[in-house]
């Protein structure tokens, strides 16, 4: 490992990691609601929220799959140092996956869990440029009282891909991050076109 690439991470490792974990929990408990992560460190190529999620969620027991756009020596060195997580080139082995906007069209290969242990599925972290500039879609499901309008700037094909792989209780939970913000999309959320 190249020690020259290492950078400081959380200022207060214990409390900041707990804040990151809390934000991830809230994001998945209230799908579509934007969560704010104030105390997040900076790393080239990773948004503060993405990096904070990685630091809070990853450890030795969670193999990480990196999309090619994130597979830089800097990101590898810092995640290996601060999280201690192993990296995997096989999507099947990944417990977490880090994707960019352009990797959303193919979600094949990731572990969807099984009927007895659906919780063992892969959790997908997606970094976007922002969370509010997309077409408005209506989200329904657990954690949403009636419906919620969410403007995620993701390609239409992603929703088709997600629907195609749906096999509840198996499925993928997704956390979208941009800047200091994140939005959760658990497998239980149903997403539909907005009626005009």
């Amino acid at each position, binding site marked *: 490992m190249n*020690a*020259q690439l*290492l*950078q*400081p*991470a959380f200022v207060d*490792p214990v409390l900041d990691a707990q804040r990151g974990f809390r934000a991830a929990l809230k994001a998945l408990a209230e799908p579509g609601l934007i969560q704010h992560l104030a105390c997040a460190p900076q790393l080239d190529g990773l948004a503060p929220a993405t990096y904070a999620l990685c630091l809070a969620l990853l450890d030795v027991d969670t193999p990480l799959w990196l999309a090619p756009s994130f597979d830089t020596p800097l990101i590898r060195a810092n995640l290996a*140092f*601060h999280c201690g997580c192993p990296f995997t080139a096989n999507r099947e082995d990944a417990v977490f996956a880090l994707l960019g906007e352009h990797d959303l069209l193919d979600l094949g290969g990731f572990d969807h869990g099984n009927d007895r242990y659906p919780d063992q599925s892969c959790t997908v972290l997606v970094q976007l440029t922002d969370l509010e500039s997309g077409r408005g879609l209506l989200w329904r499901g657990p954690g949403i009282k009636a419906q919620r309008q969410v403007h995620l700037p993701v390609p239409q094909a992603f929703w088709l891909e997600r629907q195609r792989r749906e096999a509840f209780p198996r499925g993928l939970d997704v956390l979208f991050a941009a800047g200091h913000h994140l939005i959760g999309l658990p497998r239980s959320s149903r997403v539909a076109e907005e009626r005009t």
Partner: protein
Amino acid sequence: MSLSPRQHWIGVLARARLSELQPHEAALKDVEYHLIRAPEVGMTLVRGRMGGDGAPFNVGEMSVTRCVVRLADGRTGYSYLAGRDKVHAELAALADAHLQGSQPSIWLSDLITALANAQASRRAQKEADTAATKVEFFTLVRGEN
């Protein structure tokens, strides 16, 4: 198995006493540096083997303090030591970074040799104290015959 020089000095720094490092604190901190990993206390599992070569078993957990610093010129110093002394961990990491410079000889002669000598004499003293209490057991007659 022989130790590399760096393994040697990292071990010496970890076994040193804080009171022995503190006289060097001003010299160690006389550079621009920042903390890559601020000193933090954690637990580690110690494993052992009965008699040194039996099946491994878990002895127990011990507290460990670790720290990583980077000097302004890019040298990165690491420390891992037993106990919960964060000041010691930072000084040991700084010393490791200084020792990786182009001229480690000054630090080696000033710091590491002195610390290693002190540790060797402490160890010899303790071994001598322990040897004085050694008892030899031997059996004259066994009970059953």
